[in-house]
Each structure stands twice: as structure tokens, then as C-alpha cells.
């Protein structure tokens, strides 16, 4: 094996891993703060990609304004997701919330199939040069993807640790009742959490089209991968999800190259099972 | 003979020891009081003894065998049963079903019997029902048998908890502040219950804040402060002990 091949796979893995990171971070955030498994998270990403296709291809916006618009709209849609499928059910069992988000994903997925059909849709990339670094081919669009993901994660980190809102959010996640007692408006926190998570999901969607195409079916597999990442990291641990997402992306690419392309899909789950066996609370989870 | 012994029992949380090298020896048939200011480690000690927490160091011996780190349900099977500081019931079940579900260790029915509703199963069920009624009458809840547990008053909650614990058939009962939330009459009733239990051969370890109650009923009292034992003796000795007074007053001043 040559270093070029390894380098190429590292790069490919970095691309996937970056997507996993922001996808799983949103999933984990919602779980950590609200104790809600959002089964529609994958469809939010899918919508991000499909809407970007529509505003660029059909409406004629350029990539950057289109992507910004889509992420903004989808973030606001997060508010609706909370008010329609989460908030009305919080008084009931946690399972009912799973069901309502399943219902939402049903609607979104099948609605998208009706609107867009199941075929893959390409989106015009803002720039698409290929540069060669050593023996590794790197696309500028890919560089953009990695850069934006990095910025998004830093932004999320700073928001959670250095802003009042972030501190309130974390307090709410740790102790809902306590947070209410000290006067935190937890309803607003829940709204913002889903706004942020939905925005992150859509961001993943508009970035995915930089390296592959948009299709209504991209949500489910991503959701599953996202859960694997979240489990390995420890549920609700956002920082852990970031580290694990990146690790999973890179090692998955190497596994695909050197062990088996065929079973590549299974790799993540095997890692997950091993982690569960040795450390059921996840690598970064508290016992 | 000591029914329960701990030696050097220690539990750390972060850098602090919630229970610190505790040596405790409870004689069979005793009513032992365990007191101490808030946060002095009483509940933690109970959790360590009954297997709800693993000790950082030290050992627990029950009826002559070492049981450190054993699972709570194993200890219950050996007759070591506890109640909880925060009221803990099967809230959605009726009072009867609470005690019935507490009777797990005294439930002789077989799976096949239950499936077939065999004569034996029905006889055994009827016997269990009788025992449930008996226990409920004993704790004064005979009239409330069909009420749903969460609808009971605070006092009734406490009695039901004790009935559930008794349904497990304890040799030694560890009660964590059972009189919290009770008015003086209810507390007096509870203390009588505990005395009756003792006369039936049950050893009791009683965690309680109410000094009057505990000095009235206990044979001996152990005092914790900051997780460590600071005094032990008869109620009279404890009330006059200057260390105990300082611990309580010091706490008050600090708070």
C-alpha cells in the first residue's frame, strides 16, 4: 500500500467525518438538552439538500446565498418541529415523542419523494478545482466543506460554553426542574435547541451536495450513522460526538480501502457494538 | 451476636468522603439509631450496606458472611431490606398490589400454575392475599386497600412503604427517615410499629432526624459527622455528649 492511497482515504474520511460531526452534534444536542430522540433529524438534512437544489437550479440563486437562505429557513423550521412534534407530547411518555418524530419523518420523506422524485439531483458547486497535494487529490469544494464544518463546530462550542444562552441550555439539559426554578425559560431553550439542531442538520445537507448529490433518500442512512456516532460518544455528549464523528469518518474510509468495501457499512455498527460491550455508557459518557 | 458489621466502610465522591472509615456493629434484636446533621453520610451508609452503592474501601458483614458489593436483591433474599428517604412506592398500583408486588420473595406460585390457574395457584394466591391484608392491617392501611398508591396521604405513604418492606420478610430492616412528613400522632404510631417489629425479632437500623423519636425508641445510637462516626452509645450518653452537641450546633451556625 502506498502513502498516497492512505492520504487519499484520510481526505475522503475527513469529508465524510465532517458531515457526521455536525449531523451527530445536532442529534446529540437535542438528546442531551431535551431527552428527545429526533427521528426526523435525517430528513432535516435531506430537506436542506433538496431545498438547495430547488433554490439554485430552479430559482437560479448562486450556491452561497442559496445555502445561507436554506439554512436560515430550516433553522426557523426547527421552531415548528418543536412546536408541532415535540412540545405537545412532552407530558406523555418519551416513546410518544419518538412516534411523533417518526410521523414527521414519514411526512417529510414521502412529501419530498412526491415533490422531487427519487432520482439524485446535482447542485452547481461554487468552485470545483482539484488540487494535488503530494499524491492526494483534494477538491476545493471539499476544502470548503471541511472549513465550514470546523467553523460550525467552533461556533457551537463557543455558544454552549461562553454565552449566557449556552449556559442556560446546558443547565436545562442537566436539570430541567432546577433550571425552571432558577428562572430559566425552558420553553425558549427548547425552541432554540431545535432551531440550532435543525440549522446544523440543514447545514450538513447543503454541504453534502458539495461532494455528492441530493436525493430524498439520503436522510435515513445518515440518521443511522448519526446514532452510531452518538452511541459510541455517549448519549447527549456533544463534544464527544464531534470527536467520534471525525474518527468514524476517517477510520471508515480506511476500513473501506484496506479491509472490505463491501462490509464498509457494517464497520460503524461493529465499532458501536464493541464499545457497548466494553463501555455501555459510551466513550465519553458518564456512568 | 452482631447481625450487621461494617469495618472501615468508606465511600468517596470526587475528593470528599461521604462515608469515612465507618465501623458499625449492630446486635441482633437491636433498634439502632443512626443520626447526624444533614449531609453527614447516613443515606450513603445505608446505600453501601444494602448494595445500592459500591464502597470505595471497607467491608460489610451480614450474619457472619461478607456481603460487600452484593446486589440489593441478593441481600433482600438474605433478609436485609431497606426503605428510602424519598418516598418510594409503586405509585400507579393499588395499595394491595403494592404489597403484592413487594411479596416477590414470599410468592410460592409457579409459572405453569399461573398459566393454568391450577388449584394450587389459586390456593397460594389466596394465601398471599390474606398475608397482604394482614400486613396492611398491621400498618393501619386495611381500609385503603383499593386506593391507588399515589392518592394516599403523606403519612399513609410512609406506612405503605413499611408494609412493602415487611412483605419481603426482613430479618433486618433499614429505615431511612421514615417519620419525615408525619405529624406527631402518626410518628408515635410509627414508633409503636417499629417496637412491635422488634418484639417479633426484626433488627432495625433507624436513620432519623427527630431526636425525641430516636432517643425514645433506640437501644443504642451512632452519630455521624462528615461521614465519620463521632459518638456511639445509649440515648442518654448521646444526648449529653459534647461532641454531638457541637456537631449539631456547629451545623446550625454554619447553615
Amino acid at each position: 500500500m502506498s502513502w498516497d492511497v492512505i492520504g487519499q482515504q484520510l481526505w475522503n474520511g475527513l469529508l465524510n467525518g465532517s458531515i457526521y460531526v455536525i449531523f451527530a452534534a445536532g442529534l446529540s444536542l437535542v438528546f442531551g438538552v431535551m431527552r428527545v430522540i429526533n427521528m426526523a433529524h435525517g430528513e432535516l438534512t435531506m430537506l436542506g439538500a433538496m431545498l438547495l437544489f430547488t433554490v439554485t437550479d430552479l430559482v437560479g440563486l448562486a450556491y452561497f446565498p442559496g445555502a445561507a437562505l436554506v439554512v436560515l429557513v430550516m433553522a426557523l423550521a426547527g421552531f415548528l418541529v418543536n412546536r408541532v412534534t415535540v412540545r405537545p407530547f412532552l407530558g406523555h411518555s418519551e416513546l410518544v415523542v419518538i412516534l411523533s418524530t417518526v410521523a414527521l419523518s414519514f411526512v417529510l420523506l414521502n412529501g419530498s419523494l412526491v415533490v422531487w422524485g427519487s432520482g439524485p439531483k446535482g447542485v452547481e458547486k461554487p468552485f470545483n478545482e482539484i488540487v494535488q497535494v503530494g499524491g492526494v487529490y483534494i477538491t476545493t469544494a471539499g476544502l470548503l466543506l471541511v472549513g465550514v464544518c470546523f467553523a460550525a463546530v467552533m461556533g457551537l462550542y463557543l455558544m454552549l460554553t461562553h454565552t449566557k444562552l449556552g449556559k442556560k441550555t446546558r443547565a436545562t439539559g442537566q436539570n430541567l426542574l432546577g433550571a425552571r426554578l432558577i428562572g430559566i425559560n425552558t420553553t425558549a431553550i427548547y425552541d432554540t435547541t431545535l432551531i440550532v439542531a435543525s440549522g446544523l442538520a440543514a447545514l450538513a445537507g447543503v454541504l453534502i451536495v458539495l461532494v455528492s448529490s441530493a436525493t430524498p433518500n439520503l436522510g435515513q442512512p445518515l440518521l443511522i450513522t448519526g446514532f452510531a456516532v452518538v452511541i459510541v460518544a455517549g448519549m447527549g455528549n456533544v463534544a464527544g460526538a464531534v470527536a467520534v464523528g471525525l474518527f468514524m469518518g476517517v477510520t471508515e474510509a480506511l476500513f473501506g480501502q484496506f479491509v472490505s468495501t463491501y462490509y464498509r457499512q457494517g464497520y460503524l455498527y461493529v465499532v458501536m457494538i464493541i464499545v457497548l460491550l466494553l463501555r455501555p455508557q459510551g466513550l465519553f459518557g458518564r456512568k | 451476636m452482631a447481625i450487621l458489621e461494617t469495618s472501615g466502610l468508606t465511600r468517596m465522591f470526587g475528593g470528599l468522603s461521604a462515608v469515612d472509615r465507618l465501623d458499625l456493629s449492630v446486635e441482633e434484636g437491636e433498634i439502632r439509631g443512626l443520626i447526624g446533621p444533614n449531609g453527614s453520610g447516613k443515606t450513603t451508609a445505608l446505600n453501601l450496606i444494602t448494595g445500592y452503592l459500591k464502597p470505595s474501601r471497607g467491608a460489610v458483614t451480614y450474619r457472619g458472611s461478607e456481603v460487600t458489593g452484593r446486589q440489593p436483591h441478593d441481600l433482600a433474599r438474605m433478609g436485609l431490606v431497606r426503605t428510602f428517604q424519598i418516598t418510594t412506592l409503586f405509585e400507579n398500583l393499588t395499595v394491595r398490589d403494592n404489597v403484592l408486588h413487594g411479596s416477590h420473595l414470599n410468592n410460592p406460585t409457579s409459572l405453569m400454575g399461573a398459566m393454568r390457574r391450577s388449584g394450587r395457584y389459586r390456593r397460594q394466591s389466596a394465601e398471599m392475599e390474606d398475608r397482604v391484608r394482614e400486613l396492611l392491617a398491621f400498618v393501619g392501611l386495611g381500609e385503603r386497600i383499593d386506593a391507588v398508591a399515589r392518592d394516599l396521604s403523606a403519612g399513609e405513604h410512609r406506612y405503605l412503604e413499611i408494609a412493602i418492606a415487611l412483605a419481603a420478610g426482613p430479618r433486618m430492616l433499614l429505615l431511612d427517615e421514615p417519620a419525615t412528613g408525619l405529624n406527631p400522632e402518626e410518628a408515635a404510631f410509627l414508633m409503636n410499629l417499629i417496637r412491635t417489629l422488634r418484639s417479633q425479632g426484626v433488627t432495625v437500623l433507624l436513620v432519623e432526624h427527630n431526636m425525641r423519636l430516636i432517643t425514645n425508641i433506640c437501644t443504642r445510637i451512632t452519630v455521624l459527622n462528615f461521614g465519620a462516626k463521632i459518638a456511639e452509645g445509649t440515648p442518654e450518653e448521646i444526648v449529653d455528649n459534647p461532641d454531638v452537641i457541637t456537631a449539631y450546633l456547629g451545623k446550625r451556625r454554619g447553615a
Partner: protein
Amino acid sequence: MRLTVPAGWWLGGALLVVAALTPLFVFTNTYNRGLLVLIIIYAVAGLSLDYIMGEMGQFSFGHAAFWGFGAYVSAKLALDLGISPWIGFLAAPVAAGLVGLLIGYIALRRTRGLELAIVTLGFGVLAWTVALRWRPVTGGPSGLRQVPPPSLFGWEIRSELAYFYFSLLLLLGIVFLLSRLRTSRFGRGVRSIHENEDLAKSVGVAATKYYVLAFSFACALVGFSGALYAHHFRFVNPNLLGLDYMFIFLIVVLVGGRGTLWGPVLGSAIFVLVSEWLRALQEYRFVIFGVVLLLVVLFMPIGVFPALQNVARRMRGGKDAGGDVTPGGQDPVLEPGGAG
């Protein structure tokens, strides 16, 4: 006390009588009778999922994987080894139960609630991936065809009607056994862990052991349902292990009503019939379905069956709703499902 027949059984019994008669009068063509069989198969799967949800108060996202696994076990035995489907109907639950024991042991040692849901999701997806990829054994994405139907004294039960009555009988047996299991020592142990695990342990219930056994039992039951599916529809494929069926079972339980025994049976009928009606809407059907689902969850979060029970109670002369929740502690069939 044991003579009073609770409303649950009246309703359930009525449901069954209707079910038993429909293929004779209403659903007279083969296709529609096939739907009835499907209702029963989903009902059994729903009942087993409800054992985890209603009795254990937990959730497994990997339940469909055990369903598909059971289907594969029975189909493989019949196809590769020529073993009779009747043996398959036994082997499938045994195999699913054993795997359930292993998975349950791994997952239930530490995790509960939502954590358990996600962990079992991982196992389920892994199983699905393996089924999809392990072509020589599973037939890959297209699965296995020509699974033989069971035969009785040399006469193959191919007719929808015969298969329907055969599985209806089994369904009845399963509901009956489940109702009795609840009042067994095991059933009460499981129930007590559901209600309060710490308290259950304090009175001697070996919580993890009981939960692992209960989980394994539910897996066995759903494996059986899978075998019923395989020999009726005569094919198996990896999708049987996947999330689509998982969602169906979840819908069956939650729409029907959690923890009510008859709820999943009703939920299954509702699911199959509603999605059949919506078929006319073609590609819009799943969109509408999702909306309908959301509305049902919104307005009947305890499920349809408990809602009907409340109506029935009111009709029987304003008896207060709590009155026969647990008559004599003997009949848990009516325990409200929405609580907890």
C-alpha cells in the same frame, strides 16, 4: 371476584368475533383475506413489542430485526434443510429468544429508557446490514423466495382462509397466555421493575435478570410472528429486519394503546386497513399517513383501545374510571397504558 369479566375482554372478544366473521362476509376475495392474515401477524409482533413497552416500560428499536431473524430462520430451515414449517414455527422463536437473551444481556446491564432505545437501534441496524450483505446465506437484497407454506396431513395450508383461522387461533392463545403471565410471579416481578426499579430490587427482584428474560421472551414472540409471515407471504428479505417494519410495529402499539393486550390487536387492524384505504392516494398515501399518525398521537396519546374502554365504562352506568382498573388485583388487562 373472578367472575366479573372486565371491559377489556368484552371489547377484545367482540373484536375477535368480528375478525372471525369478516373473511366469510366482508373480505371475501383472496387479496383482502391476505390483509386479514397480515393484521394478525402484525398484531402478534405488536403484542411482543408491547411486552417490552407496556410491561417492561422500555423500548427496543431492534425489534423488527428479531422479527426478520425469525422469518429467516424458519425460511432457511424449510428451504435448505427441508424442515417442516411446523418445526420452523418452534425453531424461530427459540432462535430469536436466544439471540434476544444475548443482546438483552449486553444492553440491559447498564442501559434503560432512551439509551436502551438507541442501543437496540444499533443492534437492529447491524443485523439489517448483515442480512443485506451476507448474500450466500440471506440472498442479499432480493432475499429468498419460494418459502413453502405449512402443511397439515399432506394438505398445504395455502388458502388465505385456512391460514387466517390458523393464525387467529394462535393470536387468541397468545393474548390469553400474556394475560396470565401478568399475574405470575415473573410477570409481577417485571411489572414491579417497570414501576420502580430501586424499590423492586429492595424487595428481592433480580431486576437485570428479569428484564433480560422478559426481553428475550418478547424477542421469541416476535420471531414467531416473523415465521408466520415468512410461510404465509412465502418470501423473506433484509427489509424485514429494517426500520420500516419497526415503525409499523411501533404504530401498531401506540395507536392501539400501550399495555392493554388488546390494544395492539386493534392497532394492527387500524394500521393495515387505513394504509389499504389510503392506497388509492398513490404516492400521497404515506404523506397523508404521516399526518394521520401525528393527529392520532396528538388527540389520543393513550391509544385508541383505552379510549374505547373509557367510553365503554361510561356506558356501563357511569362507573368511575378508576373503579375497575385492577379489580381484586387480579386483572391487569385494564391497567391504563398512558401512565408512566
